[in-house]
């Protein structure tokens, strides 16, 4: 019985750290933000497509989805290339200043879910 309890405790702790190191855990979901403006830099690559966007008051780093998900959902490279207009709704990072992860983006008149 104690062996099982120990095993459960160990796995629960491991699972906790796994959630913390990646995914949506290090973003402030209680304070969503919308970044809208022109794409300044565009890295359409894995593990995540990453843009910098000229927002109203500052430049944001915008983290999107892996390239296979982007392509599958119709968010192609040329739609988020340098100079494109984008509106990204998501959550600011709790670790990196001026970085946010997008729930969804609107480009070329289309709204595409990232999650």
């Amino acid at each position, binding site marked *: 019985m104690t*062996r*099982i309890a120990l095993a*459960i405790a160990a*796995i*629960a702790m491991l*699972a906790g750290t796994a959630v913390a190191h990646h995914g*949506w855990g290090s973003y402030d979901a209680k304070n969503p933000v919308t970044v809208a403006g022109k794409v300044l830099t565009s890295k359409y*690559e*894995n*593990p995540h497509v990453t843009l910098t966007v000229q927002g109203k008051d500052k430049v944001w780093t915008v983290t999107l989805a*892996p*390239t*296979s*998900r982007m*392509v*599958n959902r119709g968010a192609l490279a040329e739609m988020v290339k340098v100079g494109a207009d984008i509106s990204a709704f998501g959550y600011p990072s709790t670790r990196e200043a001026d970085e946010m992860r997008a729930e969804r983006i609107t480009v070329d008149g289309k709204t595409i*879910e990232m*999650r």
Partner: protein
Amino acid sequence: MDASAPQWLVALEGSGLGAAIRQSVWIYPAANVAHVVAIAAFAGSVVLIDLILLGVVRPAGRATLLQRARRWSMGLFAMVVLSGLVLFIAEASHVALNRVFQLKLGLIALAVLNALVLGSRAETAIAKLTDTEPLPAHASRAAAASLCLWLCVVALGRFIAYV
């Protein structure tokens, strides 16, 4: 790219190989899935070694080993489901609509059915045999289905993020 990291790591990430991995649509997802599936199988082998070393897994007849392993697998499956439920609740509206996730649930249903029906049947039959009598053919079929289905479930779970 974190320029504050040791130079050799920056060079590794910035190499042609690093760029090729990032820019390929399929390499990173494929490596992710392969990594997780390999870990699942690897973990099984390591846990077995360690449980033998701890004296938890002791030599026993085929039927006894199967019965003990079956009990462990059911308890561990409960933990997988509980932790999975936590993950699911956080993003339920998105994950439920994801085709890969739906396929994964379908395969889990088949795998559980296989274990409950074919697996139980195999174990019941084996309990009536001595350790030297040959295994029935249906035991191999239950095992092949189980291996195939569960490894696919693990792969699909990781692949959800890439579709």
